[in-house]
């Protein structure tokens, strides 16, 4: 019964979808803000990667919100799973091979994450991806060593300081008499590491923050007792 209703509902939704998207042109150029961004990004922001420029500069407010969403998810997960940590139980340890390799790979993965967020304005990637990679690298250690612990104190500090950096960078723009999150640094030459004004600063802050947050999420979930 439930299935029948669901299928009926989906059939209606699907019908509308198909009707709308059959007329949607695929692969054609569009007028609109996208075109403006493509033509003016390098001039206005100095970033080679237009997507990064949009994410951090033109629509930087979104990114601030996005960081907040992740922050809230980490906080909320902490609140939901509060008081459920600990209790000993027997677990299968990882084999020597996995342990040794994790040790070797852990710094490399973290370095890769750092590379991704430092080069956010030049190559694909940026703060979120870099942070996710760092968190995954820490997870590698969690998986190999049950006793591996991250310091919650340090996580909190990184998280807060990175978040404050982001907000402060925004407020500096406001304090200088322009608008929130406005660039106040020289743009530099495109495709240099030190270019694009505040974009790298924001992405580094985001990278640290997301890395710390996702590590916190994974830690919270892993250390929860069943």
């Amino acid at each position, binding site marked *: 019964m439930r299935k029948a209703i669901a299928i009926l509902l989906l059939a209606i939704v699907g019908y509308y979808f198909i009707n709308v998207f059959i007329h949607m042109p695929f692969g054609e150029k569009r007028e609109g803000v996208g075109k403006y961004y493509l033509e003016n990004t390098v001039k206005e922001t100095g970033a080679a990667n237009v997507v990064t420029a949009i994410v951090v500069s033109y629509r930087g407010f979104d990114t601030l919100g996005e960081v907040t969403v992740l922050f809230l998810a980490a906080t909320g997960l902490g609140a939901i799973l509060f008081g459920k940590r600990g209790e000993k139980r027997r*677990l299968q*340890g990882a084999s020597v091979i996995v342990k040794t390799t994790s040790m070797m790979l852990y710094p490399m*993965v973290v370095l890769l994450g750092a590379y991704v967020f430092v080069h956010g304005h030049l*190559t*694909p990637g940026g703060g979120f991806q870099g942070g996710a990679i760092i968190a995954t*690298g820490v997870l590698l250690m969690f*998986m190999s060593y049950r006793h591996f612990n991250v310091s919650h104190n340090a996580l909190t500090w990184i998280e807060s300081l990175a978040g404050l950096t982001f907000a402060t960078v925004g407020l500096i723009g406001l304090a200088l008499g322009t608008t929130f999150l406005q660039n106040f640094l020289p743009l530099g030459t495109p495709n240099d590491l030190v270019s694009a004004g505040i974009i790298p600063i924001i992405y580094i802050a985001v990278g640290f923050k997301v890395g710390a947050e996702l590590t916190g999420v994974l830690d919270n979930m892993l250390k929860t007792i069943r």
Partner: protein
Amino acid sequence: MILYILIVLGLATFFVVHRGLKGPTPSDRIVALDNITTITTAGLVLLGLYFDRYIYIDVALIYGVLSFIGVLTLARYLEGGL
């Protein structure tokens, strides 16, 4: 040239997907996933060559690293670790 190679890769993917759908044990399917990710890494590098953009290689690099960790997690789950 590259497209023909990619089609071969696609064919290989079908074998792997078949194993992933059929594979009697969970391990079989995880092996299939592992192989899909490895093949995909190769495919991404080849596509980067096809589009002739150096920056696309980054994606393959990160992809390789992360898929490895994903598969390792699954393996550790099977082992009873985690």
